[in-house]
């Protein structure tokens, strides 16, 4: 029993569209020694023999939170599975795993999973939401998956995007895909599975803590499109001809910037109202805030209606003291968000 760690355990969410290589990626990463102390939950029957790991099954059932917004649903079976896993761990019936990897179905929306981890009154004391890792199929992403709203959600909420099957497409197609992913989710780390570093799956990544300064700084770093920069940008800043007519034409990512300190209370009221009214259209929020009365920045991030507990970082990542918030939205433009936020922090808070 003395070996049991009582830390709050990260739950890494591995998602991606049908056939995009989630299981192959998991098999590869989890076979390494560094990931031996990992428990795995799958919500479809596993095809891979993970005999040294723990397998459970999570059925796609949802219940409504009684005190939250209407869309914050909790996956009851996920909650039960994680509680059961933790109980067995504490009783010493299974090894003291240090992280959980949850593999979702190909059509899953990761939003309710995040809300389960944050809102469940028992789980939130034992587990925390780790990185959301989304696999993207280089062969089918732009040709087919881009027309599915589930694919867009999975890419938009990701902390890490792993492009798979890169050996089956040419450089031009790969570059175009990387460009689309960059426009869709500029704050996510991106990697090709053939050059994948194990770090992409490390449990603590994607979890914002007070010392996650570099992690947060990456959200706002200018894109490095690599070879994509060699090719012509799509017309009028859109996603390009390959995705014409898809759901992507409604999706946009942008950064709202305020060059002054903001009043936390006014900001929190504004964001809580915004997510209440438009949470379904706000796929992802990541922000670094210069809050009045605090010498260090506050980092916050959320998925749809759900916001993780904000964290005071130990220091600013650089000399830039502006508040910056990256939004990935569907049908909501920056020129409506920016003046709304300014009204709240400048007029409501005065």
């Amino acid at each position, binding site marked *: 029993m003395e070996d049991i760690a009582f830390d709050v355990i990260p739950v890494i969410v591995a998602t991606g569209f049908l056939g995009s290589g989630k299981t192959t990626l998991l098999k590869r990463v989890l076979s390494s020694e560094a990931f031996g102390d990992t428990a795995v939950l799958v919500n479809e029957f596993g095809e891979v023999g993970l005999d040294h790991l723990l397998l459970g099954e999570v059925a796609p059932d949802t219940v409504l939170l009684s005190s939250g917004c209407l869309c914050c649903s909790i996956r009851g079976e996920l909650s039960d599975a994680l509680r059961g896993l933790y109980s067995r761990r504490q009783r010493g019936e299974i090894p003291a795993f240090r992280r959980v990897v949850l593999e979702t179905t190909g059509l899953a929306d990761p939003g309710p999973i995040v809300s389960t981890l944050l809102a469940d009154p028992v789980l939130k004391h034992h587990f925390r939401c780790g990185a959301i890792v989304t696999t993207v199929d280089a062969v089918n992403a732009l040709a087919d998956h881009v027309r599915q709203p589930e694919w867009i959600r999975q890419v938009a909420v990701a902390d890490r995007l792993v492009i798979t099957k890169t050996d089956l497409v040419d450089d031009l197609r790969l570059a175009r895909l990387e460009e689309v992913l960059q426009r869709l989710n500029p704050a996510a780390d991106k990697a090709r599975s053939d050059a994948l570093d194990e770090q992409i799956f490390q449990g603590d990544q994607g979890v914002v803590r007070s010392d996650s300064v570099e992690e947060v700084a990456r959200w706002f770093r200018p894109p490095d499109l690599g070879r994509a920069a060699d090719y012509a940008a799509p017309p009028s800043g859109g996603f390009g001809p390959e995705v014409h007519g898809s759901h992507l034409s409604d999706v946009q990512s942008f950064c709202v910037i305020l060059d002054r300190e903001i009043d936390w209370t006014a900001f929190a009221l504004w964001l809580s109202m915004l997510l209440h009214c438009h949470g379904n259209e706000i796929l992802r929020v990541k922000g670094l805030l210069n809050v009045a009365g605090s010498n260090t920045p506050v980092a916050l991030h959320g998925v749809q209606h759900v*916001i993780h507990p904000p964290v005071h970082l130990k220091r600013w990542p650089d000399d830039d003291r502006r508040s910056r918030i990256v939004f990935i939205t569907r049908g909501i433009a920056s020129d409506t968000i920016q003046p709304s936020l300014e009204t709240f922090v400048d007029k409501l808070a005065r």
Partner: protein
Amino acid sequence: MCGLCGALGVEDHWTVSASATPSDVAERRRLRARRIALANRILATRRLSVEDFEGSAYVLSGPTGRREVVQDLGALWRLAEQMSGAAFDPLDPSLLARIAR
């Protein structure tokens, strides 16, 4: 915990957690009072008001005298919408204009 009503501890919502540590009681109360004051400026645009309930919840009141308890700001806007019959949409130009007055 309040023995009479069973209200538990402090408010547990992301809107609170960045502003004060749980042990900093005076600061937590000050920020809670400010949160209520600013929320009332918004709610007043539709003749609603909110007040503190035992330091851990809120009581929302409507123009007809209806009163209901809500746990946090996430639930507040949903109930306010039900009571007033209209959305509290921060992107609504008319709401912004009234806040800016």
